[in-house]
């Protein structure tokens, strides 16, 4: 082992030198002596639509050339050589050149999905022999819209992968979930309540990258919060493969419970180096913002509200006259009509450039990709910049030895304004200011505006990833692959608040984090086949074992100085009076983790008809308790390729291309908790007898039996292709059970500890997924029209709760929107008040027959209050579930499911000659959204004496007079609004169906005539245009049913998704 690492390191040095030399000198071909030339053969390679560029020409399985942009080629070959022409997506053609010097080759489309190579457990297999559930998307389909994170482009393209673009903030990626809900852990409260993100594990070129830790949306954590996936330019992505079931992910086991996404970046594969430039210029436009009431309208509305709702006319007059901003209309400070939103939103012009240089053949190839991405956010002071340099090379002098190395460096820079990236809180408060106030200036009162706009916020992430992979075949069919990766990631955040907006003291915040991770994998692989009488491979075996070790460290330090000298001299830190003005130290998310795994896999197939795949994996992790030991994850899968049966031969000729059935079962894990949960936290506890003592923290008791979350999946799938592959489809059904979900439970105070972690919760997802792709025009047609539709139905069920109870309720102290977890039902239910209209008259309010009192609302402190608590005309009709004539927590009902039940997408692709059009749409069905944004618009009327922005209510059917049957209760009764709370967040009035269909993008492309472009030395020039976020069909009354949290809550502080218009230029030299 040790020797091997030394070799790796030794080789790496040479690789860098070679790579650099190659780059500098342009000396990138003819490294090896060519076969002696005997004659020159020329010709063209084409399909129905014309010449195909970059077709590989092979002689004896060695690449000897490629076609040019017209599909023409010229190669020197021995007299009777047999040439092979191969190109992705086409069937390989073999032609003998004996007696010919000019060839015309016609390649036929090969749409057979089964031949596609999939990666599963670090070993390549064809899809025909893989039993797991996976979907592969080509990088070409991910280029239409410039996005910071390439995963956003997968939305609506993979059945069962649910991506929601829930923030338009630049650099942030949308939330992702594979096959439903994987966690029910909720943190935070109110509008900051969020469901634990369960992003899949990303494996980039064979190296696992965990996106869940420290990077999660940059949310609830300090630091720049740039996801490592956002640091990969989309132009460098060759393909993305989404692994969904346990059989496919089994060998990524220790962190694969949320699914696995494999990202493969580009490699060189052309003898002639190809230089590709891609530039995109895009305009991000502000979506429609809410309308507000301005100036005199706002003032008169406030006056009218006070006069109508106060106890008496003269008392109301007194209040009005005692409130300067209402009464003093001649005061310049209060005599304004400021549109606050206009100070925050802007249309931005952005660009991205990418230069890719790639070349080589299987024996030696290289790629260098330079990318630059800059997007300014549609909200002031937000934006994302990225510069990347990614290089890889492969050296394979013979079949026995292979060396592959990558160096990837990325610099991400993010401006978060005054929010945390996902939410822009400063803008939410500033944007909701009263229009009566003067526009923002150093003299105005609305600091959040200046805070959002003038704060200096600078966040940088530097990510450096280096990988080296070495493969050696000791004897035929037995090979050892060793992969070593080192990742270094640092994040800094500098935030400066000028004195004028921070109580005359400028404030400085500096954050600095370092994460490094080391990963090593050694894999021993053995392939073996037994031939039958006819000489074909009949019994095929593939077996491999590997071990995996990883180690990561994370540390973040912060200093905050609340008393900086002045706005211009931002240091040194002086004038430190006490700990309140200068804070600093290491944050408590300091973390070190280690994990080790051993795994083995065995695969057998008989003539590719029957496939058996089994694997077994042992995992140990420092975040699991020592009593938990190694976790075992077995998996097994079988596949039957019906089309390879001899009895189907006649069918295969007529209509059937392939049909297969897959069945798989397996478990995968996800570590939960951290080392503190296992061993407890030890603190410095002061002096005893003059000696410093160290004691255990009494907050959380250690749990040495803490288990990782365990995901067991049963998958049933059916694939088919018919009518010459013009129609292909996959149908899958799955049962996914997640056990050992991480949670905490409160301990009795006699234990000395507050709480303990627990693994008692369990969750089940049952779902069905379907994908259907049809090529609507005949294969012989010059035009191609492909329509691909996919959809997934998912139902989640809660299977167990801690302490064996059947239900638990999580009350939210801020919004009151409780979440009910009930065993046997959906895991996260909205537990809110049921509103059935508005009381038209006082007599409609139910009366307690015993006391003669009307139905009333209990105060927040539990008291019953006075005469204002009784419901009356204009109040919402909340259902009194327990019939005690008092509205309180016992009247909450299970009103809806915050999770998505159906998600799907459709992609239409049309190509004709030089034109291409791609249209992509996505949608969801069945999700209950709590429209907190609308509720807070009504709540703005709760107190007319507060300077907050008001929104016109004329479009809503609100209660105005006795006897009126209205939809919305009386918003103006401010004396009682804090008691009856007619516009409380937690009610069915604001629960809406969040189903939508979104036309994601329309993209047009045109390839310029090559004869024309060749004159300027350009091989291929493609011009394109894309409109992103085109329109949305929905019944939802809020601005965007997608821009909501994972708990289905629409928060007015969300970052709207911009509509972008893209101009695209792609040049290949």
């Amino acid at each position, binding site marked *: 082992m040790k020797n091997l690492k030394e070799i790796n390191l030794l080789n790496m040095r040479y690789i860098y030198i070679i790579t650099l030399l190659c780059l500098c000198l342009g000396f990138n071909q003819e490294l090896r002596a060519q076969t002696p030339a005997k004659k020159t053969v020329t010709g063209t390679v084409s399909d129905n639509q014309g010449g195909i560029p970059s077709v590989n020409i092979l002689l004896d399985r060695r690449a000897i050339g490629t076609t040019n942009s017209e599909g023409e080629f010229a190669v020197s070959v021995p007299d009777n050589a047999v040439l092979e022409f191969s190109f992705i997506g086409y069937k390989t053609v073999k032609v003998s050149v004996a007696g010919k010097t000019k060839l015309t080759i016609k390649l036929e489309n090969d749409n057979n999905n089964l031949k596609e190579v999939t990666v599963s457990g670090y070993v390549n297999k064809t899809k025909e022999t893989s039993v797991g559930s996976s979907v592969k998307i080509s990088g070409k389909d991910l280029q239409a819209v410039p996005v910071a994170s390439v995963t956003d482009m997968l939305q609506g393209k993979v059945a069962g992968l649910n991506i929601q673009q829930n923030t338009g903030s630049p650099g942030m990626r949308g939330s992702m979930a594979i096959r439903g809900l994987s966690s029910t852990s909720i943190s935070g409260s109110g509008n900051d309540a969020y469901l634990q993100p369960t992003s899949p594990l990303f494996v980039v070129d064979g190296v696992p990258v965990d996106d869940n830790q420290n990077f999660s949306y940059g949310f609830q954590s300090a630091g720049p919060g740039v996801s490592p996936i956002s640091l990969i330019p989309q132009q460098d992505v060759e393909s993305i493969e989404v692994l969904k079931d346990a059989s496919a992910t089994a060998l990524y086991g220790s962190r694969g419970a949320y699914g696995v996404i494999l990202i493969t970046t580009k490699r060189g594969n052309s003898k002639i180096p190809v230089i590709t430039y891609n530039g995109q210029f895009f305009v991000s436009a502000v979506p429609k913002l809410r309308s507000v009431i301005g100036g005199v309208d706002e003032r008169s509305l406030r006056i009218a509200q006070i006069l109508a709702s106060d106890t008496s006319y003269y008392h109301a007059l007194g209040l009005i006259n005692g409130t300067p901003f209402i009464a003093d209309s001649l005061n310049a400070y209060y005599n304004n009509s400021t549109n606050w939103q206009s100070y925050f939103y802007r249309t931005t012009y952005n660009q991205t450039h990418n230069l890719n240089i790639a070349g080589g053949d299987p024996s030696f190839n290289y790629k260098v990709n330079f990318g630059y991405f800059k997007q300014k956010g549609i909200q002031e002071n937000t934006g994302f910049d990225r510069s990347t340099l990614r290089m890889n090379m492969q050296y394979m002098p013979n079949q026995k030895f292979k060396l592959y190395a990558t160096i990837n460096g990325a610099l991400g820079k993010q401006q978060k304004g005054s929010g945390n990236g996902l939410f822009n809180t400063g803008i939410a408060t500033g944007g909701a200011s009263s229009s009566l106030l003067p526009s923002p200036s150093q003299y105005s009162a609305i600091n959040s505006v200046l805070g959002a706009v003038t704060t200096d916020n600078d966040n940088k992430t530097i990510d450096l990833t280096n990988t080296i992979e070495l493969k050696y075949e000791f004897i035929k069919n037995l090979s050892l692959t060793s992969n070593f990766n080192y990742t270094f990631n640092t994040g800094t955040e500098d935030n400066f608040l000028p004195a004028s907006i921070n109580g005359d003291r400028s404030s400085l915040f500096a954050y600095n984090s370092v994460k490094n991770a080391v990963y090593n994998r050694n894999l021993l692989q053995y392939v073996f086949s037994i031939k039958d009488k006819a000489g074909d491979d009949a019994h095929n075996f593939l077996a491999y074992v590997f071990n995996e070790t990883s180690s990561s460290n994370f540390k973040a330090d912060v200093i905050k100085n609340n008393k900086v000298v002045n706005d211009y001299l931002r240091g040194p830190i002086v004038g430190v009076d006490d700990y309140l003005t200068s804070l600093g130290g290491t944050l408590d998310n300091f973390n070190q983790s280690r994990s080790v795994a051993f795994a083995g896999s065995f695969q057998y197939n008989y003539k590719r008809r029957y496939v058996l795949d089994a694997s077994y994996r042992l995992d140990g992790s420092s975040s699991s308790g020592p009593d938990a030991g190694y976790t075992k994850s077995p998996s097994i899968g079988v596949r039957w390729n019906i089309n390879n049966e001899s009895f189907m031969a006649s069918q295969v000729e007529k*209509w*059937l291309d392939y049909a297969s*059935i897959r069945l798989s079962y397996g478990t995968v894990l996800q570590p939960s908790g951290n080392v503190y949960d296992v061993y407890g936290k030890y603190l410095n506890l002061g002096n005893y007898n003059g000696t410093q003592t160290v004691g255990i923290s009494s907050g959380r008791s250690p749990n040495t039996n803490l288990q990782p979350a365990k995901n067991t999946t*049963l998958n*049933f*799938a*059916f694939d*088919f292709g*018919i009518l010459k592959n013009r129609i292909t489809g996959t*149908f*899958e*059904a*799955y*049962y996914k*059970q997640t056990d050992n979900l991480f949670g905490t439970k409160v301990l009795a105070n006699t234990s000395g500890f507050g709480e303990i972690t627990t693994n008692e919760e369990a969750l*089940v997802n*049952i779902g*069905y997924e379907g994908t259907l792709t049809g090529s609507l025009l005949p294969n012989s047609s010059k035009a191609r029209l492909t329509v691909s539709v996919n959809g997934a139905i998912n139902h989640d*069920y809660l*299977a*167990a709760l801690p302490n064996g*109870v*059947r*239900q*638990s309720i999580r009350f939210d102290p801020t919004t009151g929107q409780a979440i009910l977890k*009930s*065993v*046997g*039902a959906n895991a996260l239910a909205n537990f809110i008040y049921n509103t059935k209209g508005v009381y038209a008259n*006082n*007599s409609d*309010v139910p*009366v*307690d*027959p*015993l*006391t*003669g*009192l*009307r139905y009333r609302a209990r105060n927040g402190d539990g008291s019953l209050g*006075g*005469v204002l608590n*009784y419901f009356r005309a204009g109040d919402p009709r909340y259902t009194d*579930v*327990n*019939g*005690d004539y*008092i509205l309180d927590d*016992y*009247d*909450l009902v299970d009103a809806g499911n915050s999770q998505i039940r159906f998600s799907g997408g459709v992609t239409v692709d049309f190509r004709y000659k030089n034109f291409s059009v791609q249209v992509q749409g996505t949608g969801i069905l069945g999700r209950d959204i709590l429209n907190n944004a609308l509720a807070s618009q009504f709540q703005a009327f709760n107190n007319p004496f507060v300077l907050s922005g008001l929104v016109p209510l004329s479009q809503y059917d609100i209660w105005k007079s006795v006897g009126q049957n209205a939809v919305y209760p009386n918003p103006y009764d401010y004396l009682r609004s804090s008691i009856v709370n007619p516009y409380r967040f937690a009610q069915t009035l604001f629960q809406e169906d969040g189903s939508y269909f979104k036309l994601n993008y329309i993209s047009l492309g045109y390839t310029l005539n090559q004869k024309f472009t060749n004159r300027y030395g350009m091989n291929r020039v493609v011009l394109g245009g894309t409109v992103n976020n085109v329109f949305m069909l929905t019944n939802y009354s809020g601005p965007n049913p997608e821009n909501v949290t994972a708990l289905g809550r629409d928060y007015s502080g969300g970052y709207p998704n911009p509509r972008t218009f893209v101009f695209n230029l792609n040049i290949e030299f």
Partner: protein
Amino acid sequence: MNNKKYSSLIGLVLLSILFITACKKNIPDERLSLGSDSQFIVNNYQPILGRNTLFSDNFYVGSSSVPLNFKIVNMRRFTGEPAPELTEFFPVQVWKSAYDGTEKSIAEIEAKRKLENHQLFEIREHSGQFLMWSKANSNFVKVQPDSGYVFDVEVSNSGGRRYYKDLKLRPFKERPFEPSYSDLTTGQGTNTGVYPSIMGNIRGEKTGRYLNPTDIEIQFKKNNAPGNSLSFKFVDTLQQVIDPNKFATTDWANLVHGFNMVKNSDSVKYDVAYPIPLAPFPTKYTTSSGGQAKAYFRYDRQGFGNVRESALVGMNFNIFEQGNWTIIFWFKTERPKFIND
């Protein structure tokens, strides 16, 4: 042929749906929760008879799903014999519309109430609150010092059912008015009257000093003639009647929620509906909490040094029993001074 092909495809799809759906039997049934921590936190109920009593906040729901269904079962006397007086139905007066103090006549008040048959001791079906109707009286219901009654409660929802055994009901004898001066258990008077709830600036005629509450005794008297009325009467040390008109600044129209006021030199009398107050709802006739009716009597006089002295004496009270009631303010030590100095 074609049909056969497609039906085989659809067949496979259905097979897989069936297969996975069969896994659903792994998932626990969806039913409501009946937690083991749910329990009554009050086991001994001691209502005072002759008035509507509501026992709230007596059940801890814990981890159970609401609403729960509550039912009293096996109501029995302490000795074990059945208790028909509590299981049979009696006509009781229930509210149909809310009382809010704005009613203009007795008829309007009565229109808001009607008779319904109820058991005298009931549990609210979904909240677990207990109700004792005012119809129950000590003539046929066992009252303390008797050990009273024992009963069980069945609590159920779709998650199952549980029984809570041997809850106790031990009523007290009626107390027709509050503040009462009779013993809770025996019903025997411990005093002859109570002090006023509020008083101020009343000077004695003889000494000119400010009178204290202890100088006044208030007595509740009822005669059994037909009708429902409430009278107020003031008497001096020698039981000589004081003219109510002397309390000149009293707001007679809004003194109590009564009608057809008859005021003469002897007393002031209203036709009323019982109980008083009708509901614990804050009105202009009640204390600010609405728990008791208030009757405040005032007069102004010119005090020594030409100051105006606003005098006040008042009583906060409840009367639960119907009839012709008289509230007597007895100035035990001295007559109040009405004349100017």
